[in-house]
């Protein structure tokens, strides 16, 4: 399998503070990699560097074999991102927002793409609604439609189901599973929802204090740490004053 994301020893310092301390990992085609860690562990900084919003202090990021520092635009054309901390313009209708982003990503056959995504994500009846007036579950599906508008090969998800009710959360997770399988995309998923990570991710990176402190499949990590589920592994690792501190 081809690596679509290759992260090689990236560091990010803010002055004297080391936010990310030289981490390396790959994400293959048709793989969802989980990125776990307590708040302040460096997950958002890592995602920010992958999106080109942050410049690594050192190290290298390659997306589809292209160096991010030299091919920012080409890379941004093939990736997308969803996070509950960013929103689409609230005063525009859903269709207007999707239309704007389709143009920013130079999508061909915009109408068809919007039609396809609105069908798949059950937002067809919302297309003429004002985005700011939607429920959080509806907004989430609209944001997901925006994140898929350019048929990304790499999708970065930061807590994609945070604040969703179980039904919508399950819908989004099922959709992501099927979409990944169908389009063979690479997904990096940062989440605090351990059952979500267990269900979706082939492998998991555990981050703490800017470092990767453990990695493996969810089952391997559970066995290795002698716990019964991933949440217990997470609690053990995040509470431990390990040798990594």
């Amino acid at each position: 399998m081809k690596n679509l994301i290759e992260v090689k020893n990236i560091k990010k310092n803010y002055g004297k503070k080391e936010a990310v301390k030289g981490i390396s990992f790959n994400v293959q085609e048709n793989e969802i990699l989980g990125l776990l860690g307590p708040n302040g562990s460096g997950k958002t900084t890592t995602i920010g560097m992958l999106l080109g919003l942050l410049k690594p202090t050192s190290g290298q990021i390659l997306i589809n074999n292209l160096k991010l520092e030299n091919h920012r635009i080409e890379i941004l054309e093939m990736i997308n991102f969803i996070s509950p901390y960013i929103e689409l313009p609230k005063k525009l209708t859903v269709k207007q927002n999707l239309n704007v982003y389709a143009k920013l990503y130079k999508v061909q056959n915009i109408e068809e793409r919007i039609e396809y995504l609105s069908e798949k994500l059950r937002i067809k009846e919302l297309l003429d609604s004002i985005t700011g007036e939607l429920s959080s579950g509806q907004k989430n599906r609209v944001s997901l439609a925006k994140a898929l508008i350019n048929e990304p090969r790499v999708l970065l998800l930061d807590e994609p189901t945070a604040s969703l009710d179980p039904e919508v959360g399950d819908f989004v997770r099922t959709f992501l599973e099927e979409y990944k399988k169908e389009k063979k995309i690479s997904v990096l998923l940062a989440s605090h929802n351990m059952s979500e990570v267990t269900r979706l991710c082939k492998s998991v990176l555990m981050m703490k204090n800017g470092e990767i402190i453990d990695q493996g499949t969810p089952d391997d990590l559970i066995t290795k740490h002698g716990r019964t589920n991933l949440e217990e592994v997470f609690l053990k690792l995040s509470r431990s004053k390990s040798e990594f501190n």
Partner: protein
Amino acid sequence: MSLTRIYGLFLRHFYLITRSFPRILDLVYWPTIQITLWGFISNFFATHTTYYNNAVGVILTCAILYDFLFRTSIGFNMLFLEEIWSRNFTNLFIAPMKIGEILTSLVITALIRSLIGLVPAVLLTSPLFGISILELGIFLFFLFLSLYIFGITLGILVSSGLLRFGPSFENIAWSTMFLLAPFGCIYYPIETLPEVFQKIAYILPLVYIFEEARNILINQTVDIENIYNAFIWNALYFTLSIILFYYSFNAAKNRGTLINMGE
């Protein structure tokens, strides 16, 4: 440069303006109030001072020109701030847009916003005060163009500050025009300023633009050198603002401002 992406970002703001009647009203309301007020002041001075005796529309024309500058600069800043307020900033900067495309789109949108406000206000001046700004003739275009470039330049400088320092720079966005206004010699000749202020005024394009507007209206002559000087200073400041914007963008990527902007 991709015209599709430039149009896409323009469309985002076009939808926003056209969806909201209060927004359109807001664009038209202030220029109209401003110009009406200055129209009455202009009429008063025209009948009570000798300086403006032969040129009733001098103050009003300068007020219109200044308002255009003000609206262009504020309009550009508003477009940038709108992305921060709506928490859409990150979405915009992870879209495959070149900095040049973002700036071009905002420059075009700011012009349209300014014209939406200015055109109705200018049309009012003729029936209300018997004054037409078109008396400036073909040179009106050059004066407007010069003001537009300077307004955009100020907008880019403030946006650079927003990129570099984050939303806390917002208050500066509203005050830049007020800081420069006294040096612009909008309503009075440059000789009115103390000598040290005159030196500052001469390195801004504004003084050449407003001196020339008065020159055309009062003396009925054209001093091409004023227009030329305005363009030279504009070219210098505009180039500096673009350089600063790129510098701020890179600094923001180092400091993490871009990722925190939407939160």
